[in-house]
């Protein structure tokens, strides 16, 4: 029988029962919508995270005190959180210990707020190395300058602030040379960063950077670091540098057994791989949950096709009487089921794409991330394949039932 004619019969059948057809494919529509949404948002999230991590550069190695947490409730991981000190930096800086080290910086996090003439604001306050930050994030001051190694060594009370912090505290007034207060200690603003937004999960605009030595001494009263970052002279040397760092620190801390490390090292590349793996697994998991809804949808289609076969018993009898073979009848009903689910698939793809665009726009607007919509081409092809596959799978039984009908009984059927 001709494809064109099959298409015509099937669409007439579907049009005759418009609302029933739509309700039948609702399950398929929802399932496909969810698949497209998950895949699109998963792709968007992955792109975003990759982008953020790549903003940090792939030649970065981060050392944290304590041991790598094995899970969110791993309290033991916070032990030895004061293990990284200035002696470690000195050891790491030695060429014979870590030959591929390009630069190194320590960082501490200062909780609290900043104040200027009665205006108070709570930004992210880092005790850090402003030159190192400029090197890894590629972020430059729009006004003034940044502090340097001398300021760090002399524990100067200086600060570089982000564009948003400047706006909150100073408005349109000049900030350079003014004194802001952090925990009742005065810091002179020497620079204001250009507007940059999110880089490597850090909102540069919302940042206050002061020398880490000053932060340790004046604000926190500690002599350890929260994090030590180092740049490697090339991405190919990241692996060997991690080994060098571990060896050096174990030596410095008198540790023989790697299981007893009081620090852990992560590279941006490792983080990248890990996140890609997690997101991939999550996407697969969610997609398989959604696949259940497609099975339910498929059963719905099968049910309605069986009803349709019964309703059209006479039609089947007549078609057989005028010469339709069993195959012709089977194909007709199978085609109708596939058209039904395929239509559901197409509607689902459109819904899914529209919803993804809306969600990515909302994320962009309210979370400040550069979350771009990406149409999952693979997902769409998969969706078309899956939805027509569901039609074939769940349409075959009703179609066989139709084909098997005895023409005489079918013609007599009232």
């Amino acid at each position, binding site marked *: 029988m001709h494809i064109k004619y099959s298409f015509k019969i099937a669409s007439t059948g579907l049009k005759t029962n418009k609302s029933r057809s739509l309700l039948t494919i609702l399950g398929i529509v929802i399932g496909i919508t969810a698949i497209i949404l998950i895949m699109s948002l998963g792709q968007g999230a992955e792109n975003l995270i990759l982008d953020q991590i790549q903003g940090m550069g792939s030649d970065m190695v981060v050392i944290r005190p304590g041991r790598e947490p094995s899970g969110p409730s791993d309290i033991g991981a916070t032990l030895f959180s004061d293990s990284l000190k200035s002696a470690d930096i000195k050891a790491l800086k030695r060429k014979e210990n870590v030959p591929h080290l390009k630069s190194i910086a320590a960082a501490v996090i200062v909780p609290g707020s900043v104040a200027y003439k009665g205006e108070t604001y709570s930004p992210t306050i880092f005790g850090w190395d402003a030159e190192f930050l400029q090197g890894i994030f590629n972020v430059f001051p729009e006004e003034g300058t940044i502090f340097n190694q001398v300021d760090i060594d002399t524990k100067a009370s200086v600060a570089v602030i982000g564009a948003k912090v400047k706006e909150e505290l100073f408005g349109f007034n000049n900030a350079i040379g003014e004194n802001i207060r952090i925990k009742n200690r005065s810091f002179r603003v020497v620079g204001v960063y250009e507007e940059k937004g999110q880089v490597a999960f850090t909102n540069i605009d919302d940042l206050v950077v002061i020398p880490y030595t000053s932060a340790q001494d004046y604000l926190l009263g500690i002599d350890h670091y929260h994090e030590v970052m180092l740049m490697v002279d090339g991405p190919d040397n990241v692996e060997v540098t991690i080994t060098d760092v571990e060896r050096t620190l174990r030596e410095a801390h008198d540790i023989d057994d790697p299981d007893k490390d009081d620090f852990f090292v992560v590279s941006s590349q490792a983080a990248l791989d890990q996140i890609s793996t997690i997101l991939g697994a999550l996407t697969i998991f969610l997609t398989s949950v959604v696949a259940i809804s497609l099975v339910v949808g498929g059963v719905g289609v099968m049910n309605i096709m069986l009803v349709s076969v019964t309703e059209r018993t006479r039609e089947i009898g007549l*078609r057989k009487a*005028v*010469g339709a073979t069993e*195959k012709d009848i089977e194909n007709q009903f199978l085609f109708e089921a596939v058209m039904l689910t395929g239509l559901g698939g197409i509607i689902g793809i459109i819904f899914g794409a529209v919803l993804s665009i809306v969600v990515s726009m909302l994320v962009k607007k309210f979370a400040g991330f550069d979350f771009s919509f990406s149409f999952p081409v693979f997902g769409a092809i998969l969706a078309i394949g899956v939805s027509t596959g569901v039609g074939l799978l769940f349409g075959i039984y009703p179609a066989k039932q139709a084909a098997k009908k005895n023409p005489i009984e079918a013609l007599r059927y009232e």
Partner: protein
Amino acid sequence: MALIEVKNLKKVYQEGETQTTALNGVSFNVEAGDFVAIMGPSGSGKSTLMHVLGLLDEPTEGSYTIADKNVNKYSKEEIAHMRNEEIGFIFQSFNLLPRTSVLENVKLPLVYSGIEEKLWNNLALDAIKSVGMLHRIEHEPSELSGGEKQRVAIARALVNDPKIIFADEPTGNLDSKSGEMIMSIIHNLSEKEGKTIFLVTHETYTAEYARRIIKLLDGKIESDKKVEHRHNSTDKFIK
């Protein structure tokens, strides 16, 4: 060689424990171009005979040869093609597809034939013209009267130019005026087109349009006679 040869045809229906014998050894020959009426009270096996002859049902026993082809030897698919090419059906209850135009209804047998699609329209229009329904081709069955529906059904039966027409109580659901028109068309199919026609009816008057009447009783042929005084297409139709 006769067009149709039936030898010792038996049909037994098995429903659970009970066996029903609908045909119990029926034999006859029909020459090409003959017009045969099959009569008998309900339960006599006339519908079963027509279904077997029309290839809608298989006999339990006996042989059936149509145009030198012994149907026992053919597959279901080949039987379907034979139904399509050799046979046209006219039913008591018309059996037109609802919500489908007259033109599309008449085209239906062509869909399952090997005939090229571009020829379908003209073949269908020719068949519709022969039953005088050209003015209604875009109408749906629900918009037609009973007589008109049956004329469309006849056009559908003719569209593949089959050798044999089976008419199962074609006037059973019609008033006498429409019935007269339908019988006159069927009469002309026999006289002018040379079709071989089987007409199942329980009305003696209708049966007398045929050349020959086979009467069945309890699954056997009770009588097989030539019709002495045939009606023709101009006769008044009496129910």
